[in-house]
């Protein structure tokens, strides 16, 4: 009976994760069109400037609002920060998918794939997508400052994957220069 309950709980958690990941994928385009995202051709090596990530999940701002002692202000602050934090997670999830698609394209051209490195990258990608899904759930129930640690971890993991793909792409281009330059 306990085993069945655990199975149901795990299935429910998985359903929630998939639900939120699906939601974030749909709304990524909306986010881009709403914010006029024309600056990003491809991906960058960080989700957004580090100071921005720090500010979104800042405990200093939370402390400032708490000191004012207004429940209304606290409610407004929480709603505003949740909106920006969700935007940040959606963007991270959307861009990491783009990076992996680029990686898959580069990998097809590569003649010396390293299975161990590929497995590690894929594992990191899965972990990052799961963290994105979890963050989407947590942000709805908790204040973003409480999630500062997870956001910093996600940001570092994003950088690692992004750097790995960047290095891999350069290595592939060096190894196969005639493929891209000759008509």
């Amino acid at each position, binding site marked *: 009976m306990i085993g069945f309950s655990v199975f149901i709980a795990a299935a429910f958690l998985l359903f929630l994760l998939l639900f939120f990941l699906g939601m974030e994928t749909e709304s990524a385009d909306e986010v881009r069109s709403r914010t006029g995202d024309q*600056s990003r051709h491809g991906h960058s090596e960080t989700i957004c*400037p580090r100071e921005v990530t*720090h*500010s979104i999940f800042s405990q200093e701002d939370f402390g400032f609002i708490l000191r004012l002692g207004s429940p209304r202000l606290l409610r*407004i602050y929480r709603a*505003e920060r949740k909106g*920006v934090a969700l935007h940040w997670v959606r963007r991270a999830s959307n861009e990491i998918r783009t990076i992996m698609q680029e990686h898959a394209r580069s990998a097809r051209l590569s003649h010396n794939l390293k299975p161990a490195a590929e497995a590690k990258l894929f594992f990191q990608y899965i972990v990052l997508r799961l963290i994105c899904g979890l963050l989407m759930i947590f942000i709805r129930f908790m204040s973003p400052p409480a999630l500062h640690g997870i956001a910093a971890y996600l940001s570092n993991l994003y950088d690692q994957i992004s750097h790995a793909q960047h290095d891999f792409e350069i290595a592939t281009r060096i190894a196969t220069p005639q493929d891209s330059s000759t008509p």
Partner: protein
Amino acid sequence: MSYRANPVKVYDAFDDLLRRTLSKIPCDLGRLIYLASTRDYNTGTYHHEGLSARHPGDGAREALQAAHRDVFCRLATATLEELVGQLEMYVQSSHERPDELVRTWQELEPYRIAIPMLADPTMVQLFLSNIRIALEVLRFRQKQNPLRPSGASQLPSPAR
């Protein structure tokens, strides 16, 4: 940052802009709104009569653009407390009634046009959100202390 104009000329114009114009404006929020007001809404290009006369070519335009981005980044990553301080300084240095200015900003959101083109989208979201929170904080403080003084020097409003 990449410049199409000669970087030395852009730097000279930038320095000139800081010394002669921006240093006279008391707060970063005022500088942001001033710099946004030098941008043509239809074309997105910047123009400043005096600066262009002293720095012909693209130098003045690119200096204005760089200064606009610079001030925006500073404000977008400022803490809420700093931003509230900026907003208070801006309100005090305008000739408008503080409660009316806050109400107008909350209703019309004129600060949206102060965002530079091609700014990072998450930074834009954070800035807009922080301004909304800062306006609420200001309104809260005004309710607690309705007789706050307003200053004398006048800044351009975002609609001008």
